[in-house]
């Protein structure tokens, strides 16, 4: 019996599509001929909703975009509003934002490491990653009471100050995470099976990656040193000394390696931020009702998934006229077909995992 092209469906309910994503695959035996992602299963009409809420009311909703890195979404939106309104943020607040954002990056990458390893079959790494992530979530819980949709970064600053007790607990967590990371690395880094499934799989060249709009770790895995924290520094990132890990081949293994290295760099940044925490207020003086004169602003940050950007147009009222979110996962997912063509069906899962997408961010 000869098999020609079969059309397979992955999702929307599927153990490894990282959310409700439907992938229509055309497969010849085991080789992928084409993939079409079908989106919209998590579409909640966020951008429409935001037009009817005040600037301050929008902030908790941004948590629900990339729900695995909610503080990053908060930061992106809030920085755009502050640029639009011309609000100066006190330096202490900027440093605390860096601490929170980098801790959030750690949590996001640890969760990603677990999911991706689980998809390829190394189940135990899922639990090791989540065990490490638990400690970070405990910090968040101590900071503001929430673990997942944190809403700790507000327009004008941050919601709470961090006292010496919390600082010391953060430092403890920073010493524990490298141990867990070492466990994960021991299991995977030089593992023959892991390398067989990731090296040379899902390759994309640097120029094509830029043309497809890829950003974040998938782009840096191609050797392109694009990191918004270095290119257009925001929230005092220019004060900190850190490296941007780069890959060489743009394959799944390099994306994996880049993200693990970024975990190490984030630990560095948090340590420096805590060491140099300036005195001062943690929230700027904000009016009770925030009305912004007509104008437009665009700001990007380096979120764990890639470059996250917000365009906000104001009309003089307390509600935005239009908010458009540039979602890194949305754009990164476009290159999935390019990466998967010609590879085996089993590789789709690995490639999708290496892109690190979150449907909340894709579907808004």
């Amino acid at each position: 019996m000869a098999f020609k092209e079969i059309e397979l469906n992955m999702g929307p309910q599927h153990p490894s599509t990282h959310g409700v994503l439907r992938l229509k695959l055309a497969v010849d035996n085991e080789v992928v001929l084409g993939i079409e992602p079908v989106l919209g299963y998590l579409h909640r009409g966020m951008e429409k909703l935001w037009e009817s809420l005040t600037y301050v009311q929008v902030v908790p909703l941004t948590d629900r975009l990339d729900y695995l890195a909610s503080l990053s979404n908060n930061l992106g939106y809030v920085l755009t509003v502050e640029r639009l309104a011309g609000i100066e943020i006190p330096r202490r607040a900027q440093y605390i934002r860096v601490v929170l954002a980098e801790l959030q990056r750690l949590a996001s990458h640890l969760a990603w490491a677990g999911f991706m390893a689980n998809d390829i079959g190394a189940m135990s790494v899922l639990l090791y990653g989540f065990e490490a992530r638990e400690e970070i979530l405990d910090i968040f819980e101590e900071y503001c009471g929430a673990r997942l949709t944190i809403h700790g970064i507000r327009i004008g600053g941050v919601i709470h100050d961090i006292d010496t007790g919390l600082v010391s607990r953060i430092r403890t967590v920073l010493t524990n995470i490298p141990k867990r990371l070492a466990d994960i690395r021991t299991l995977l880094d030089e593992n023959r099976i892991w390398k067989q499934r990731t090296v040379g799989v899902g390759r994309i060249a640097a120029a094509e990656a830029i043309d497809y709009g890829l950003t974040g770790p998938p782009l840096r895995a191609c050797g392109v040193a694009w990191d918004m924290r270095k290119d257009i520094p925001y929230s005092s990132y220019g004060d900190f000394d850190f490296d941007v890990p780069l890959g060489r081949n743009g394959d799944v293994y390099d994306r994996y390696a880049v993200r693990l290295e970024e975990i190490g760099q984030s630990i560095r940044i948090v340590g420096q931020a805590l060491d140099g925490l300036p005195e001062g207020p943690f929230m700027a003086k904000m009016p009770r009702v925030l009305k912004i004169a007509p104008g437009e602003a665009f700001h990007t940050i380096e979120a764990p998934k890639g470059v996250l950007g917000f365009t906000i147009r104001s009309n003089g009222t307390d509600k935005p006229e239009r908010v458009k979110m540039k979602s890194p996962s949305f754009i990164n997912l476009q290159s999935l077909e390019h990466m998967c063509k010609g590879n085996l069906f089993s590789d789709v899962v690995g490639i999708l995992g290496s892109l690190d997408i979150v449907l909340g961010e894709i579907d808004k």
Partner: protein
Amino acid sequence: MPADPADRPELRQTLEALTARFAGAVLAGAVEGRELAVRLTKDVLAPALRFLKDERGFNAFEDLVVFDNLQAPAGGGARFTVLYRLYLFPGALRARVSVDVDEGEALDSAVPVYRSADWAEREAFDMFGIRFDGHPGLRRIYLPDEFEGHPLRKDFPLAGRDRGL
């Protein structure tokens, strides 16, 4: 957040080259810090993007934003303003290209120039109903294909329309 205070000379040069190449179609242009903002007529959109990419180095397509001017008509009076955000890497320079397009009119697709514009244009079509000529497969991206209406338009109610379901 403090933007780069100094206006970049490369962007000034780009603006001059653009105005020279597409004389008459450049309705407005300004450089502020690391961003170049131009307003063009929609007929030169595709060649202008091609020019900016191939000859001025804006190799990355960052975002496509659509504004519905129903409640606050901008100069030009067109229903929609479509904004293309370009990025130059390395160098961290930005270009903001805006065109006005009216109800029922179509724009040239940017996909032949930047592949990452594909889904962004589908989203614009889905949410606002703007058509892009030359797009490899223009169809809705978030909503079901049979959906009627374009939700992000200002005249579409927030709670949706009752379809009697």
